[in-house]
């Protein structure tokens, strides 16, 4: 399933990229995500909990980040095994931070998600809604993180 999302934010591209390209910071901002251990330069171990309607799906697995600092783009691959017979989840996301003329930036995230098991069965039709809500929460947290940074940077 393809999920295409994007948002604009009133902050310089370099600052936004600095957060989005740091897996630990990213996981703190993404609702339900957790990074537990670094395996190598590009790969981390972690978990993800998603609530879809009456279901809570918890996955553990790996996530890898291939970063292109020049283009401020990333390819993120996540592979999760669900707990309690929940099935599996795989995601490949291409994200990019592009500077806008007004000094802000635009973030685009195109994902290809494959889910098996109960979440795929019951989540159909809700997945888009859930991913949009997660993104809204993410943008909210990102905005406040950037504001906090800006406040800390003030003398």
């Amino acid at each position, binding site marked *: 399933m393809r999920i295409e999302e994007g948002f604009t934010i009133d902050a310089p591209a370099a600052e936004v990229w600095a957060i989005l390209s740091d897996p630990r910071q990213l996981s703190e901002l993404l609702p339900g995500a957790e990074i537990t251990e670094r395996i190598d330069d590009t790969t981390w171990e972690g978990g993800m909990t998603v609530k879809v309607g009456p279901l809570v799906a918890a996955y553990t697995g790996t996530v890898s980040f291939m970063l292109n600092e020049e283009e401020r783009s990333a390819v993120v691959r996540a592979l999760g095994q669900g707990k*309690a*017979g929940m099935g*599996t989840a795989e995601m490949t996301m291409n994200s990019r931070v592009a500077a806008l003329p007004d000094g802000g930036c635009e973030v685009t995230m195109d994902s290809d998600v494959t889910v*098996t*098991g*109960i979440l*795929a*069965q019951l989540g*159909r039709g809700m997945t888009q809604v859930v991913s949009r809500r997660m993104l809204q929460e993410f943008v909210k947290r990102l905005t406040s993180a950037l504001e906090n940074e800006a406040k800390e940077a003030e003398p």
Partner: protein
Amino acid sequence: MAPKTSADICGMGHSMKRKEDPRFLQGKGNYIDDIVLPGMLWLDIVRSPIAYGKIKGIDSSKALEVPGVLAVLTGKDLEAYNLHWMPTLMSDTQMVLPTDTVMYQAQEVAAVIATSRYAAADGVAAVEVDYEPMKPVIDPFKALEEDAPVLRTDKEGQTDNRIWHWEAGDKEATDKVFEEADVVVRESMHVPRIHVASIETCGCVADFNPVEGHLTVYMTTQAPHAIRTVLALVAGHVGLSEEKIRVVSPDIGGGFGGKVPVYPGYVVAIAASVVLGKPVKWIEDRMENLQADSFARDYHMDAELAADADGKIRGLRIKTLADHGYSDAQAAPSKFPAGLFSICTGSYDMEQAYAEVDAVYTNKPPGGVAYRCSFRVTEAVHCMERVVDTLAHKVGKDPAQLREENFIPKEAFPYQSPLGWEYDSGDYQAAMDKAREMIGYDDLRREQAEKRARGELMGIGVCSFTEVLGAGPSKDFDILGIKMFDSAEVRVHPTGKAIARFGTKSQGQGHETTYAQIIAEELGLPAAHVQVEEGDTDTAPYGLGTYASRSTPTAGAAGAMAARQIRAKAAKIAAHLMEVSEEDLDWEPGKFSVKGAPDRSVTIQDCAFAAYTNLPEGLEPGLEATNYYDPPNLTFPFGTYICVVDIDRGTGEVTVRRFVAVDDCGNIINPMIVQGQIHGGLTQGIGPALFEEIPYDEDGNNLAGSFMDYLVPTSMETPAWETGHTITPSPHHPLGAKGVGESATVGAPPAIANAVVDALAHLGVTHLDIPITPDKVWEVLNEKGVAE
């Protein structure tokens, strides 16, 4: 037709209230989940979340730590007893529990046995299974491509995913008819995978007594005797012997064919009881039921009709791909891998027909149960009735008129169909006339023309089906070699009351009432005094069970024959009591009288008492009879359904405004029950026509695995059904009756589909696959530029 018996006797033709209903209506039914045995354990099943993959490991350690969990059974455990595989009714094989590979989502992977249902469920959640997913084969057409991976590597000699090829008819002669025809029409259609969705899911309580080696299985099964024999055949090597197996089918909350096959859950529960020496209960929850078993249909059909320029049908050609999922575990007679699909020529006379079906394996659960259908008759009728409409539109004739012009005339019965059936009786024009009159067909066509001129979308759909049911004559019909006869044992007690036992098993059909009425009709005992029992293999005579509308054609006939044997003996007793010869007796229901002296009479009750107290010399005491009835032919009920739909141009929603169903099932045993059967069947016809489908995504996920997504019709979607009937008795059935339970499920979907297509025909639409959901219609409306 006026009943032959009085209301006190309540034989055939009386709308007797159902004898079973007081206990159902008062919540006093005895269903599988009501059965609780001392020391009983619970079983719950770990199921595969993926459609295809290797099992790298199963870790039960955390599950065994859950309080109350006693054991976790895996395929490896069953392998030790050689019980990890089982045969299907179609002589294919199926895993009970896998040892290394899972083949479909929701497949049984392991079983947790615990002291309570809750502990078992907690145990299931704690079992950790490590899978290595593989790319599943979901599309049946791709399954047959050369580079498709072979799924059944366990089967020796299996080099592709084809299960079998079946054909009927003369291909060459049919091709020739098509070459010479003025008109050829063609329609490709899919009758999708649907689910029986009965109100009660599947389950069992297996109770093995290790001291006596006796196994009792209380089970949701439509065919308890066949199950007992299958158990004896497949589990003989672990010490089960048929005389020590008792299968009891208690009250069943709807079967519809879904409770004919043997599912792994039953076998695991039995194995667990044998291993543990304790009763073990297994009950599916709703989602397990919707995801793992009881699937029907899934036929992809290409149908062609050859006709003269005026629409006279000359030939039919159908090419079919049947998606059976992981195993051919459908329930069909052994010699009929594609069921009775060859009924596809339907109500129409034609020179030649040829039908072929290829069955394939895919990574879906095993499918193909005969959901309220006499083995693929639903698919065959849908196919024919749709393409007949396509022909009508092509030659510019009214679809009702085109049907009438092609009907097998009533003088032609018994009729030999080009695909080999001998239709017993029919008067198709009479049913059509009655349906047209009831719905006011010509007025509706006028209304449609006016509405069409205003841009409103209204359609009228016609379906004139012929069914083939009551399997079946032993020369053709068997399941695993067991002939498809059925049986009745009737025993009249000294006080003139009776018990009647049958080899079938009601799942809501009302056998306790209708069988009693059959005995009442033949013996003149009040139906209220006839106790009917089914479902216990220790007491009921052997029979093949209830499905395919076979109960009245087979066991009902056996009941009538047994009653006649009893009446013959009663006549000897009556002659003895009145000191006349048998030839001097007249019979009217319930009474023998002396010819010419009608005041000298004895009742059947008098004869019953005398059978135990005052017998003529040389006559064996008692008054009972057993009959095993091997039907000489199947029965061919028919009917015409006409419905009217309105389509909302804004939303694409289809509303069934009126639906008239005229059925002919021969002589009627209980008109109220027949009407109830038709109402239920029509509702289970509107479901697949407009709402129901089990779709899978490309990864093999079941996308309608709960009632959130699998939409069964409720009273809100169901129109007020209008029913009528004609009566054309079966010439070979002892009571002139035919089966009826499935006619409406078969006839309703094409009537509704035809109505929707009829509403859109002027826009160039010739076909829509069922279920015809609002989004499908909305897309067509947009494509044709008529959406509001």
